[in-house]
Structures are given as structure tokens and as C-alpha cells.
């Protein structure tokens, strides 16, 4: 296995981007990453594209080739493959790119993630999101995707005394971070009362416990680490990549409040990097709902199971806390263009390790982790990165 480095990153603005099409977004993020990497284009050996449901959101499948075409690479005939794992699609695309270089097959790979969610109405979006759950045995009976995470929240509150106020503080913290991120969908702070008084979506989760519907794209350029310095003077090494699966349905799980896919993906990643949770300086975690961030910091081993709510309350995970989490604003405030999210998390960690995160820069950030979840935890992908 060869070491792999990130030599370029690119993001579009996240938000309701009415004037931008699917292909414009993908070309914009891709070209930013390619410019940042200082490559021309013909060096690219392969492309991987994460997209959860382009077919339902914009009526277009076959987006591996589309992204290569929209990026101006059709005449170079670069192999381009779409990767799908619901909301973990982006993280899985990063991992496929990583594996293809680590194996020795490729030297330079472009990874993209994209979702254009606002070209359909709210009903279609609700029905598309729940395809990440079990259609026959969950969605058929009327549960929604926020409803599934709401059931995790109810159980966490019951078993561990987690409060709605603690859930709300996840959103408050992530909005405070998002206010400092020029790419975020919501660049403004919110107060705990806003979260607690918001319309209920699925008890106990309100509208501000939920990540929004977002258009956006993200891209990174990966390179064999021994060649990275030929292109970039600030490469970031991917020191571990872990992935794991679990039952598609929440009701099939061993424990409702634990994402065993996260536990297992993290275990593999820590082993590969020869690190433990206490070695991580900052993390981007999959806060599709506020409860998801509480489970994530527990399942990644940062906080004891059941104590996630208290950790949020004690401000351990704020920008100036001992373990900053979701410095980008997270899915909640930066936005959650589903297929782009896993790639955008890696972009944020890379920017932090390159000391380019501006007002949200974490001091002395050396090792960062990104956790990307598909569905309610049927898929999880964990990457650990270090400045070279």
C-alpha cells in the first residue's frame, strides 16, 4: 500500500443555488480543486464521483461520465465512476480514489461529490431522503428520514438523560462555526430558543435540529504521497481510511443509540493510523440531525457512550474547546448536499491542516478526522488526515 496525499481542494458555495445547474456546480468545484493542485488535467488517471440520488433529484443518472464531460475531460477519456452509499456517497468516493492510488494503479485521481436538491419540491425531497432507509420495512409504514433519527434521539434521552436543550446546543454551536465559513448555506448565529421553538418535524426533533436541503459540490485531488510535493507545497496526507456496514433498518441494530458502523470504521482507521481517539485534534462529523453529532462523538471514542449531550453542554466541541467538532458549520449550518458532504468534510480538514481556515482556524491542528454516515448508519466511512 502506498501513502496518499491531498494536493488540491475545491468547493462551491452551498445553498439554494437557483441559477446554477448540476453540471455547472460539478465543473466549478472540480476546476477549483484542479487549479489548487497545480495540475493541468491530462495527468489525471481516474475520477470518482459521489452522488446519492441524482436520478430522483435532477432526473439524471450516469453522472460519472457527466461529471468528466462537464469538467472538460471527455476528449481525454479519463475513466470516471459514480459511487453511491446514500449520504456517505462522498466519503466512499474519497475512499475509492484513495484505494486506487494506494494500490499502485493510479498516481493522480480527482474525487468529486455533488447533489442538487432544490430542483424538486419538498415532497419529492422527503421521499428521496427516505430511500436511504429500508423502503419495504421502514418507509412503507410511514416513517420519514428525520423520524428515524428522532427515534434515536428519544431513546438517547430516555436511556442517558440527554435533553432537548443539549440537542439544540449542537445546532447553536454549528451555526456559530458556519457564521465564519463563507461557503456555508447559513452564515448566521442562532440562539437556543430558536431551536427549541422551531416547528416540530418529528418529535423530539424540530426544524433547526435538521440539516437543510442544499445544492453544492466539493472536490479534491489525490496524489501518490511520494509525488505530492512536485505539485503542492502543502499536501495533506490521508493516514487512514476505514469503512463499515450495518443493517439497512434502524430496528435491525444491536443498539438503537450506537452506530456500530461508525464504531467499526473508526476502529479500522485508528488501527491503520496507529492512533487513538485522544490523538485527534479536530473532527468533521455527520450531523445530519443534532442527535447524530452526539452519537458520533461517542461512537468515535471521543466521549463515553451516553455522555455526548453533557459534552456538548460543557462546550468541549466548540471552536475553542479541547476537541473542536464541525468547524465548517457541519451539515446543519454549512448545508448538506448529500453526495458532496463526505468530500466537503475532507476539504474542511485539509484547509484546517493547511492553516487556511481563516476565522475558524483551530490552533495547532495537526491531525483531523472526518466521519461520513450513510442512511441511519448502514454505511460509515472514517478518514484520518495529517499535514505533511
Amino acid at each position, binding site marked *: 500500500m502506498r501513502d496518499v496525499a491531498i494536493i488540491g481542494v475545491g468547493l462551491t458555495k452551498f445553498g439554494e443555488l437557483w441559477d446554477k445547474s448540476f453540471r455547472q456546480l460539478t465543473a466549478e468545484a472540480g476546476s477549483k480543486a484542479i487549479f489548487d493542485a497545480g495540475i493541468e488535467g491530462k495527468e489525471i488517471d481516474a475520477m470518482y464521483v459521489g452522488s446519492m440520488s441524482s436520478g430522483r433529484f435532477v432526473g439524471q443518472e450516469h453522472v460519472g461520465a457527466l461529471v468528466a464531460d462537464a469538467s472538460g475531460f471527455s476528449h481525454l477519456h479519463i475513466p470516471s465512476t459514480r459511487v453511491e452509499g446514500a449520504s456517505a456517497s462522498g466519503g466512499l468516493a474519497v475512499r475509492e480514489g484513495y484505494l486506487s492510488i494506494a494500490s499502485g494503479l493510479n498516481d493522480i485521481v480527482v474525487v468529486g461529490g455533488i447533489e442538487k436538491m432544490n430542483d424538486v419540491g419538498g*415532497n419529492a425531497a*422527503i*421521499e428521496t431522503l*427516505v430511500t436511504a432507509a429500508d423502503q*419495504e*420495512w*421502514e*418507509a*412503507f*409504514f*410511514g*416513517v*420519514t428520514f*428525520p*423520524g*428515524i433519527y*428522532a*427515534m*434515536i*434521539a*428519544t*431513546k438517547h434521552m*430516555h436511556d442517558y438523560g440527554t435533553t432537548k436543550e443539549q440537542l439544540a446546543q449542537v445546532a447553536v454551536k454549528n451555526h456559530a462555526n458556519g457564521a465564519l465559513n463563507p461557503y456555508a448555506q447559513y452564515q448566521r448565529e442562532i440562539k437556543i430558543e430558536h431551536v427549541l421553538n422551531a*416547528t*416540530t*418535524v*418529528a*418529535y*423530539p*426533533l424540530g426544524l433547526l435540529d435538521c440539516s437543510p436541503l442544499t445544492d453544492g459540490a466539493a472536490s479534491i485531488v489525490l496524489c501518490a504521497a511520494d509525488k505530492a510535493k512536485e505539485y503542492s507545497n502543502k499536501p495533506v496526507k490521508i493516514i487512514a481510511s476505514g469503512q463499515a456496514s450495518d443493517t439497512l*433498518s*434502524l*430496528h*435491525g441494530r444491536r443498539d*438503537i443509540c450506537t452506530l456500530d458502523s461508525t464504531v467499526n470504521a473508526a476502529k479500522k482507521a485508528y488501527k491503520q493510523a496507529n492512533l487513538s481517539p485522544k490523538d485527534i485534534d479536530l473532527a468533521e462529523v455527520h450531523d445530519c440531525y443534532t442527535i447524530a453529532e452526539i452519537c458520533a462523538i461517542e461512537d468515535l471514542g471521543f466521549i463515553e457512550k451516553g455522555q455526548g449531550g453533557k459534552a456538548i453542554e460543557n462546550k468541549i466541541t466548540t471552536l475553542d474547546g479541547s476537541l473542536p467538532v464541525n468547524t465548517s458549520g457541519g451539515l446543519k449550518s454549512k448545508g448538506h448536499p448529500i453526495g458532496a458532504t463526505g468530500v466537503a468534510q475532507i476539504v474542511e480538514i485539509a484547509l484546517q491542516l493547511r492553516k487556511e481556515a481563516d476565522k475558524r482556524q483551530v490552533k495547532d491542528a495537526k491531525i483531523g478526522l472526518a466521519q461520513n454516515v450513510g442512511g441511519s448508519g448502514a454505511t460509515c466511512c472514517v478518514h484520518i488526515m495529517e499535514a505533511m
Partner: protein
Amino acid sequence: MEDGGVARFWREIPQRYNIIGNKCGSCNNIYFPPREACPFCRRKSIGKMQELKLCGKGEIVTYTIIHDAPRNFKEQVPYPIAIIKLEEGPKLTAQIVDCNINDVKIGMKVISTFRRIQEDGYTGAIYYGYKFKPLE
């Protein structure tokens, strides 16, 4: 659900109407919905999975109350949905009915009841299946 696709519904009728699961003839573990093979015994279970009707009694493990629903469920909001652990062991997801939504609690004993689940638009098929109500 989209227009049409009725076969997709009727092939699940035994499970959805009568909660028919199955049991591994090798380790006696019970599954719902039925599995093609036992995840623990795998090849040893092939040809040994036996149909089993579950009693439909169980306990609420966790729940939510849906306020923002998909199109086919909009007329029912707000409605409680729960994960129920059946007496035989398997867990499933279902609506809770015939009680005040504020009375739904973790640990509540419930029993299955045959109900209309959703209809595929104005002219489409009506889909039936299990919901759960308090066990008196």
C-alpha cells in the same frame, strides 16, 4: 411508492398481513422480515429456514411523532411511529394507533392490528398491513 408496482406489494402480503417471519433450523434464531439465510449459521441454514407466524405482541423500544409526512401519509399527521420488540425477539417499525399520541411511551406493551397503511394516490391500490395498539 410510485404508480403501479402492485406485485411489489402483494409479494409481501404474508409478512405485512400476518407477521410471518422465519426461524433458523440450525440455531433457532427468529427473524422478521424473513431472511433467505441465517446471518449467524449462513450455509448451514440454507434449506432449513422455517416459516413462523409471530404472535404480534411486543414492547415499544423507542418512538417518534411524525409531523412532516410523505404525500401518502399527510392526512394522518401527527402520528406516532415506534420500533417494537416482539415477544419472539425480532424488532420492527410500525405506527401506534388507538391511543392518545401523548400516551405513547418507551416500554409500553402493544399488540398488532390489521389496518390500511397508505394508498397510492386517488386511483391507485390501497396498501394494508400491521399497526400496533396498546395491549389492554
